[in-house]
């Protein structure tokens, strides 16, 4: 797990950029989302959800990314972790949560995200471009829009290697190896740093903010930069509730109900 200095055979006469970073610099992009247990109602405009009574939290997949960033920096012994969120002022609370978990500083890209994932990715990519990050981490998906695209788009825009939905991430010197789950198996991949990864469940167990962390978070830097998002090529037509499943029925109690179930599956549902 330890990011290392280049080995002697990788030394050249040229100044080696990795030498300047015996430390690791990691950006984590985070999003504020409704708690997954929240009951979701559609607002009167039909274009947004009704936020009344909904608790907003750090996107669950971003917790894996935050944990990975903190743990990788701890393993390296030195460096910097930066949390980045694009959104309205409410995201500052979520950024503070990541600072309380142990992220060093936060960047609020202040503006209104678009329904077009690429327009948002361009805003985030521009903010990260000259940051000199070794790793840029994302969640696999945001549990509100399920867009599942911000990470790989930012990677493509910055011309960086990318692996999505990683369940294992190992850094060795200037390269990374990852595992990701695919249908019926696990894919192994490797790439050079700097690189972009999106984090899936299984990568780690995210820590909870400690009391000390919460106190420390109040004093950590949170920089606000106003941003504007470009034109959207993806426009929202509307939101709707999914069709209700037709009411089912209890066919009976205990093993005695098995024949009735088999009958229903055979002649009604026709799935046996």
């Amino acid at each position, binding site marked *: 797990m330890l990011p290392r200095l280049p080995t002697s055979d990788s030394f050249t006469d040229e100044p080696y950029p990795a030498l300047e970073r015996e430390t690791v610099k990691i950006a984590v992009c985070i999003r504020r989302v409704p708690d997954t247990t929240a009951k979701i109602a559609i607002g009167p405009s039909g274009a947004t959800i009704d936020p009344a009574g909904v608790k907003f939290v750090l996107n669950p997949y971003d917790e894996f990314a935050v944990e990975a960033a903190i743990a990788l920096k701890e393993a390296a012994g030195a460096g910097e972790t930066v949390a980045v969120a694009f959104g309205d002022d409410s995201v500052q609370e979520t950024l503070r949560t990541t600072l309380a978990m142990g992220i060093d500083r936060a960047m609020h890209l202040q503006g209104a995200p678009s329904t077009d*994932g690429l327009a948002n990715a361009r805003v985030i990519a521009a903010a990260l471009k000259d940051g000199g990050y070794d790793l840029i981490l994302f969640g696999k998906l945001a549990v509100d829009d399920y867009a599942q695209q911000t990470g790989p788009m930012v990677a493509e825009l910055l011309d960086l290697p990318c692996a999505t939905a990683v369940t294992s991430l190992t850094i060795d010197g200037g390269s990374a190896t990852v595992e990701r789950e695919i249908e019926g198996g696990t894919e192994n991949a490797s790439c050079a740093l700097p690189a972009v990864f999106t984090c899936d469940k299984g990568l780690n167990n995210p820590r909870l903010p400690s009391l000390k962390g919460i106190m420390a978070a109040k004093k950590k830097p949170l920089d606000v930069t106003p941003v504007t998002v470009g034109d959207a090529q993806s426009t929202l037509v509307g939101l709707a509730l999914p069709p209700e499943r037709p009411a089912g029925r209890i066919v009976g109690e205990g093993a005695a*109900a098995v024949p009735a179930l088999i009958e229903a599956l055979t002649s009604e549902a026709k799935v*046996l």
Partner: protein
Amino acid sequence: MAAILAILEQRDGALRKGAAELMAAARQLADADGGTVDAIVFGSGNVGGIDGLGAMGADRVLTATHAECAHYCPDAMVATVASIAGNYRAILTAATATGKDLAPRIAARTGAPCGMDVIGVAMQGDAIRVTRPVYAGKVIQTLDLAGTPVIAVRPSAVAASSAGKAGAVETVTVPEFTKRLTVTGVSTADQGAVDVAEARVIVAGGRGLGDPKHFALIEELVAAFGGDAAVGASRAVVDAGWIGHGHQVGQTGKTVAPELYFAVGVSGAIQHLAGMRTAGTIVAINRDKDAPIFKVADYGIVGDLFEVMPVLTEAVKKART
């Protein structure tokens, strides 16, 4: 006239499941205004199954052959698709782990919008209208995508159909590309085991099983269904280490839509429902008659799973012979 490009997946030199469904979605868009469908297949050599693509609806089959494409090689695929994207009204992939990894990269390269996990596609004037679940399936979002959007279609969203097109094979050149990511290999955990995301029948076990060894009850029912059934699981039992994460159904696991889903000793938490509520038929077996799973189940048995499962397994075996 709309030309649609469908990117098909292969593994170990054979087309993956779901090709017919993706072709059906492509055909649906193309047929809306008398257009055509090209299927593109990447590989390091011959790919088995491409001779069947005409019957699934491909007017042309484009083969892109490159040594790096033995395994998934996103950099080669993005470069190739971007080089021909200008010929198409839309580019489709399956909403699999691979398709969802690839689609946003293509979109970012070509400057197009991207729609993921799409369950409905239609032409809408100059745009393509897609519907897709958001908020863990609690809401359905409708979007209009302009330009040549890249759309990852859920395999279960469109039923396969036969179209009887020519499927004429042509080669397409993989342009120069920089390989930034190397897939070094794929390990298949259980040889022959069916993945929950691809199964026709899923039998999912939850904490009600009480002990990891009782997954045997689940496996026996899976076996009774033969080769297209898979073992599913709730997060509670995955987190407890009873079974691998690959089996987890739900918001932080897999989204599945099998024809038949059994929830056995699973309470039916909202995050579990997020992953399976679009299954064709849902059967719940739970000893608590108030368990939320019964709200989405088509058929329920209230009772002790240890008593019900062996009887059910025997009955399924008998019904299927």
